[in-house]
């Protein structure tokens, strides 16, 4: 042992202190080298990308920096800027109310849609995040009625009566359900209708109990209209979509045929043609003595549109369930309604949620198309009254930029949620 020791000239007895990595392999330099300049092709790409970014900043920077917020018209902006490049954001500070709420919503009532929006966030939370306390679902259940009252105004009794009708119908359904799902459904509907009828008659004379100022549907506009159309149509289309999806999966040829024709027809035509139907054709299909609001006709058409897309998403979810689930439900002796309600749909809907969210985002974006049929939604407000006014005639970037930003913030947060949910639902380990 000691021999070997003595034969060697030098033996290190303690560890050397660790050396710093070479300068090019640590910290920011390493990051830049590996992420930006790892090869000559990468270097070129980096330079091109850098050029694009600089170009954008140089051209848009002064425009933002010189932006004016407190003039009264575009010509004033031009006079103040005196030839310099600069934005005229005053159009936003002067017209933001119209952009958000439309031209005709009474300005002292803006708190109502705002409050409805906040309640909507609370109501949506327990649906979107399973971990939140279930008691919040009460808010979700009450939301449609409260929101209706807040947005349209009038007496609180109207939504109250419809709420009582729904609850009564639900109890009727629960009690009759053991005689059969269909019978239960029928009983529920009839009881609800009776309650509505009686309630309507009782409250007919009490117009000012807890009354808010009534606002007609066609007075709603701006971003609020986009939101309303999006939320209302998506919520209405969910049950219809589920029924269509089940219909398409059904073994009954007539039911299946009806569902397939409906879905393929709606998915085959652009939304804008359906909106043309709403604006120029649909009125002819209602009885001569009724006269339906444009907004209601639009809601009908958009709901049909989105329910076809949602049906396809849910069909995907139904098809993705292992066959064993269907067989297991059958072998338990459950009938069709029970099997679907207790076994199949809960699972199928769960895996369809990301798809449904995507459809919802797409539909929400598509609500801007109503501007083409002379409704004053956010885009319609810009293209119609604001650009037509003498003061703001000629302001484009600021308005379109604002619209794009509003939609981006909303849709991006929803799609981030959807991606988060997808990660939550993913059960395979990649």
């Amino acid at each position, binding site marked *: 042992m000691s021999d070997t020791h003595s034969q060697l000239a030098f033996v290190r007895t303690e560890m050397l202190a660790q050396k710093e990595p070479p300068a090019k392999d640590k910290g920011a330099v390493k990051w830049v080298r590996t992420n930006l300049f790892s090869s000559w092709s990468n270097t070129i790409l*980096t330079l091109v990308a850098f050029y*694009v*970014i600089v170009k954008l900043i140089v051209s848009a920077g002064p425009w933002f920096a010189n932006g004016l917020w407190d003039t009264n018209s575009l010509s004033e902006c031009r006079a103040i800027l005196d030839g310099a490049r600069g934005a005229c954001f005053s159009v936003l500070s002067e017209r933001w109310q119209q952009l958000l709420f439309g031209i005709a919503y009474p300005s002292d009532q803006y708190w109502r849609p705002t409050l409805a929006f906040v309640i909507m966030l609370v109501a949506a939370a327990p649906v979107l995040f399973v971990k939140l306390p279930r008691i919040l679902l009460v808010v979700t259940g009450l939301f449609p009625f409260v929101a209706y009252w807040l947005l349209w105004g009038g007496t609180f009794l109207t939504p109250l009566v419809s709420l009582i009708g729904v609850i009564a119908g639900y109890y009727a359904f629960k009690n009759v359900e053991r005689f059969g799902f269909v019978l239960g459904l029928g009983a529920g509907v009839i009881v609800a209708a009776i309650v509505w009828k009686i309630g309507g008659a009782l409250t007919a004379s009490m117009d000012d109990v807890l009354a808010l100022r009534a606002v007609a549907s066609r007075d709603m506009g701006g971003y609020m209209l986009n939101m309303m159309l999006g939320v209302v149509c998506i919520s209405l289309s969910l049950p219809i979509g589920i029924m269509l999806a089940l219909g398409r999966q059904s073994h*009954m040829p007539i039911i299946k045929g009806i569902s397939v024709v409906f879905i393929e027809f709606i998915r085959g035509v652009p939304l804008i043609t359906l909106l043309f139907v709403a604006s120029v054709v649909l009125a002819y*299909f209602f009885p001569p003595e009724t006269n339906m609001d444009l907004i209601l006709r639009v809601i009908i058409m958009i709901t049909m549109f989105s329910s076809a897309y949602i049906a396809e998403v849910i069909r995907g979810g139904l098809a993705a369930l292992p066959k064993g689930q269907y067989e297991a439900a059958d072998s338990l002796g459950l009938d069709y309604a029970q099997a679907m309600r207790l076994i199949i749909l809960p699972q199928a809907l769960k895996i369809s949620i990301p798809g449904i969210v995507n459809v919802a985002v797409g539909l929400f974006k598509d609500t801007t198309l109503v501007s083409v049929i002379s409704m004053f939604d956010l885009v319609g407000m810009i293209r119609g009254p604001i650009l037509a006014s003498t003061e703001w005639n000629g302001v484009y970037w600021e308005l*379109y930029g604002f619209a794009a930003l509003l939609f981006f913030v909303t849709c991006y947060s929803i799609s981030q949620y959807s991606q988060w949910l997808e990660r939550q639902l993913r059960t395979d380990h990649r």
Partner: protein
Amino acid sequence: MCSSQPLLVTFREAIMTAYTDPPKESFQLSQLIHDTRYRSYTFQFIALVLLLAGVGYLLSNLFENLRNAGLSISYGFLGQPAGYDINQTLIDYTNQDTHMRASVVGVLNTLLVAFLGCITATILGVFAGVGRLSKNWLVAKLMSVYVEAFRNVPVLIWILIISTIVTIMPSPRAFKGETPDAEMLFGMVAFTNRGVYIPKPVWNEGSAVVVAVFVLSVIGMFAYRAYAKKLLFNTGKLLPMGWPSLVILFVPAVLAFFVMGRPIGIDIPKLGGFNFTGGIDLQRPLIALWLALSIYTGAFIAENVRAGIQAISRGQTEAAASLGLRPGRIMSLVILPQALRVIIPPVISQYLNLTKNSSLAIAVGYMDLTGTLGGITLNQTGRAIECVLLLMLFYLIISLSISAIMNAYNNRVKLKER
């Protein structure tokens, strides 16, 4: 135990008898509801009756309303002169032609912008999709910004914004004068806010020969490549692919071009009067819509491409690398063929979306079918129901054909399992 034995036997007997001798029960009406064998008929019958009643109700309303208003459904207007002009037409059209022909012009314009849009959207989408997975941080982030910005803002707003951007390009007037503010690219292509003017080939006598030679060269090139591939598989001998293909493709055509005395010329757009004249004129609405649709749809295709590439497990890349394939070959021979199967179906449905979104042409003044039949024709004739019905029918046919193609493709590439 013992006592259960006879019971089991009787049960089995009961089943046997049930199999051999089904009970001849008389049909009762209540079976229509309680017996699952008949219940489905009841349901379907009810559904059918409800459907027919609903349709009948709506139609009777329609006819009553039309009668009250003194109107009638008639397609006669299609045969009458349209009376308006269309700026971008693929077939000859004057304002004396019929509404029918104006609609056909619209159909072709829809197909044109959809076709162009699909091509550029695919190119953009593939670049952005691959770019988002790039190891280059800046490029990946830039592509993410592009994809997210376009996916999360309505296409209508993008069309309006891009149309405004196109509007601030130089006007043809800027090309005028001694020291013009704008110049033509290579002296041939003019980008203006009225559209893009590009040179137009002029086919003189003898040009047919040149074209024929070129077509033959293309066939020849594919034949050569097929031969080289076969040789590689059979003998392992690797023939050069790149430069011989190029030679076969171009040399004969260029020779023929000079031999025939340069029969193909180009017509370069020139500034004359108010506008550029000569060349091919791609009008501003077409350019704006084309750009907007391809950039918007490109963002969606980028996501499909990214998802498709990510769906291929890393093991495939590693396995290919361990076989000694170069990175480029790994992509083209291993990853892409597998990824394409995942990518193509959603991309085709994006094409379908693009075609349907092209109906927003109405916002930029491009005269597609929605602009002609569903726009000016509808305005001028007031035949709303007829026009909207025809419009929907057209889009329906397009969509169903694209879905048919998609189904055929899906069946072809379906993994042959089990």
